[in-house]
């Protein structure tokens, strides 16, 4: 879609911020560029939404525009003048402020004290009155209600975010970038935020709004730019598009194949989740009455944009997170709030999303990590004494079968392994027993093509031999290719279950984004 340079939208005025040909590659992380020649601009008085899946590069672009990251190539113009932004302070000085997805405030300090950080408005003698009254005036002006004298730790998520916005507004920016600002908010708080953003746009601010939720795009934007895998897929006025077109742009165009497998006979239920509620650390509900049944010989895919409760569901099932209400039945036994060990001993294997953080112990050796969850059992230990040769054999088998590249089983620390090798190691470690139930989270993330197809074959084999597999992935192709049924999660709930051979990618995409 060609870029329109003439301002046709109703609210658009002069261009405040323009980025040209922005590219970004992080050294050694990925071979491809995270951002590939992005053009983007925001005008006075508009809300310009950046839409895209996770990993599309939205946050990276926002960080470059606000000076948090440098770019590998490309130019940034503010009010028509080329600038170089080396730090967030640079960004603020040029009138670009960013509100991050995670709250970046010091919790033990008051709102006013947090605002003061990084300014020269208070000296050693600590006269905060000036700051407090100014923050108060700003909060009245923009309808961002929050008491500047209250400690940030005592505020709700919505209030913390308002405080964060005030902190940026204090520097009198012209462009405000908000990275997925609604992810921690209740629907009511989100509505309130949208009202504030509209009001600010009318005041003449240029607002960059980042989201992956379709309804929000339609509600708040004047213009929308769709990003996919670091490229701009299109840029359009909101009035000239609809949800369906945007969804199509956002997702991949290639058609996934439903992989061949034995016929699925609805056999006995291996695991069932009944009306589970889970509360997050801030008292917000993260799982909202989720129910699922997982059968023997079935792959149940869980699709959804990340942050909609998938991680919490997996943690609840594997005993890593407390279940407030509802029950978890594994192989006919009530395992609600059982310990991770008890659940593991029921034959549940777990390939976690956070591989380096919890999947392995990085400073320990490859051999030790190969039996991280099996060391208690024969033949790896006998009367509490570890059997090194049995562990060596086991590790060698996994290394051989899964193409793990590890210099030495007993001398190499696991931290030196690449992410892909660690993932292959975990796949081997968690699947060698042919477990009855496998809970897999993003199992192929970061693997190359060959390893992906190997993993897919492995999953189909395990399924055909009777394992029940719960597969959480953001990769819709993977979910459709592997699953027998697909459950779609949105805002802490399962909003739909479809048979995989009837699944349509754009339809799934619509359900995923709450459209």
């Amino acid at each position, binding site marked *: 879609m060609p870029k329109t340079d003439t301002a046709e939208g109703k609210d658009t005025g002069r261009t405040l911020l323009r980025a040209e040909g922005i590219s970004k590659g992080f050294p050694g992380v990925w071979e491809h560029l995270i951002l590939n020649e992005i053009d983007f601009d925001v005008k006075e008085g508009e809300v310009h939404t950046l839409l895209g899946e996770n990993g599309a590069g939205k946050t990276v672009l926002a960080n470059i525009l606000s000076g948090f990251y440098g770019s590998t190539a490309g130019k940034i113009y503010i009010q028509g003048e080329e600038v170089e932004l*080396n*730090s967030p302070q640079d960004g603020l000085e040029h009138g670009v402020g960013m509100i991050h997805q995670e709250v970046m405030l010091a919790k033990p300090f008051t709102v006013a004290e947090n605002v003061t950080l990084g300014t020269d408005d208070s000296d050693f003698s600590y006269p905060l009155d000036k700051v407090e009254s100014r923050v108060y005036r700003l909060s009245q002006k923009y309808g961002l209600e929050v008491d500047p004298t209250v400690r940030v730790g005592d505020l709700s998520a919505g209030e913390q975010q308002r405080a964060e916005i005030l902190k940026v507004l204090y520097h009198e920016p012209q462009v405000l970038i908000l990275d997925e600002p609604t992810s921690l908010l209740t629907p009511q708080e989100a509505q309130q935020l949208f009202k504030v953003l509209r009001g600010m746009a009318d005041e003449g601010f240029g607002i960059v709004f980042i989201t992956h939720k379709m309804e929000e795009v339609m509600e708040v934007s004047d213009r929308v730019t769709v990003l996919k895998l670091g490229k701009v897929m299109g840029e359009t006025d909101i009035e000239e598009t609809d949800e369906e077109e945007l969804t199509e742009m956002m997702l991949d165009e290639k058609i996934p194949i439903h992989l061949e497998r034995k016929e699925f006979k609805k056999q006995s239920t291996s695991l069932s989740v009944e009306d589970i509620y889970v509360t997050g650390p801030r008292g917000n509900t993260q799982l909202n009455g989720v129910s699922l049944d997982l059968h023997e010989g079935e792959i149940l895919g869980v699709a959804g944009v990340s942050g909609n409760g998938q991680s919490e569901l997996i943690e609840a099932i*594997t005993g*890593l997170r407390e279940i407030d209400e509802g029950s978890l039945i594994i192989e006919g036994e009530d395992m609600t709030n059982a*310990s*991770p*060990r008890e659940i*593991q*001993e029921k034959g549940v294997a*777990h390939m*976690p999303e956070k591989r380096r*953080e*919890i*999947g*392995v*112990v*990085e*400073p*320990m050796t490859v051999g*030790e990590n190969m039996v*991280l*969850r099996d*060391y*208690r059992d024969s033949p790896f*230990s006998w009367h*509490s*004494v*570890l059997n*090194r040769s049995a562990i060596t054999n086991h590790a060698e088998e996994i290394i051989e079968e899964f193409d793990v590249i590890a*210099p*030495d089983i007993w*001398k190499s620390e696991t931290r030196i392994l690449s992410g892909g090798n660690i993932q292959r190691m975990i796949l081997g470690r968690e699947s060698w027993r042919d477990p009855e139930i496998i809970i897999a989270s993003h199992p192929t993330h970061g693997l190359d093509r060959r390893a992906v197809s190997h993993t897919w074959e492995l999953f189909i084999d395990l399924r055909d031999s009777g394992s029940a597999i719960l597969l959480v992935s953001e990769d819709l192709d993977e979910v459709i290719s592997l699953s027998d049924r697909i459950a779609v999660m949105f805002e802490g709930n399962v909003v739909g279950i479809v048979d995989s051979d009837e699944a349509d990618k754009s339809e799934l995409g619509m359900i995923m984004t709450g459209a």
Partner: protein
Amino acid sequence: MLTRIYEQVKPILNSFLAGLIGLAVGAIIMAIWGYAPFGAYDALFTAIFGSFYGFSSTLARATPLILTGLTFAIGVRGGIFNIGAEGQVFMGALAAISVSLLSLPSGIHVLVAIIAGAMAGAIWSLPPSFLKITRGVHEVISTIMLNWVALYFGMYAVVEWLGDPQRAEKSISAATTSRLPIMVSGTSLTYALFVSLAFSLLIFFLLWRTTLGFELRVVGQNPAAANYAGIKENYSINSTFILGGLAAGVAGALQIIGHPPTYALYSDLSTVRNLGFDGIGVALIGRNHPIGVIFAAVFFAGLNVGARTMQITAGVPLEMVRIIQGVIIIALAAPELIELSNQLLPAVRNWINEVKAS
């Protein structure tokens, strides 16, 4: 290949380097204050290695340090900062004196005394463990406080209950049946050394060859992964405390039943004081490894023993050795300092640019 060998021996090299830096800085300080550093080091090392007597004394001094070093090392492996060895040593020593009131055949009496000391040390490690697990109290606070409780309890016990009727300044001596035989006559080196060495090997085996040690190290490195692996974190923390307490308790017992000529505690507990704190330095130099701790303890003990000779023959004050020990520990912490400065440098550069720009 070479880099891999380097990775393997790096901790040892670091410790050696730190030792050299410590000695070098010590020499500079001595030179500044007008002492002759070479004469001092000559005296120091002659005292340690120059005579059989000196080396025996060094080993005798190293005997309890190995164990208190283990206490701290086990703590680090298991993820706790256990500085309670000091108090646990006192309790172990008191227990060993107490059981010498029993009359038992000699071999068994030694065993009973060691076990009693170990138990006393382990029991004294339980309150910090309990407080940490149930109330989240940090072990540094609780162990330091209990060190003082143990000190004054020990002084009171020596005077009130275990006092020597003939000599008011000390406790009764360990019964002859519970004493460990002297290895080198004329020195305080006894077969207690072998108890320490055996304990080190036992801990080595426990940490790297058993499921308990495996769990303990996983919890120490990554509690979240431990939870994922089905390891009970609290059980593991408690085991870490108890193992450390056992080691320190044995150290206390050995200072009674294996420490001629008195085989007793003085009322100010001087024969067992600072062993626990020196253990922290020993563990650091020994890289928290049971085998490394043995060599580090000998080195530390050598400095302590040689310091006296250094004072007498070279006229350099005893405290110089404390300075050297301090510098060594700082030098060992230096790699982390370098890392920190690497992180700080870009910030400083930005700041300089800003100043230039304005």
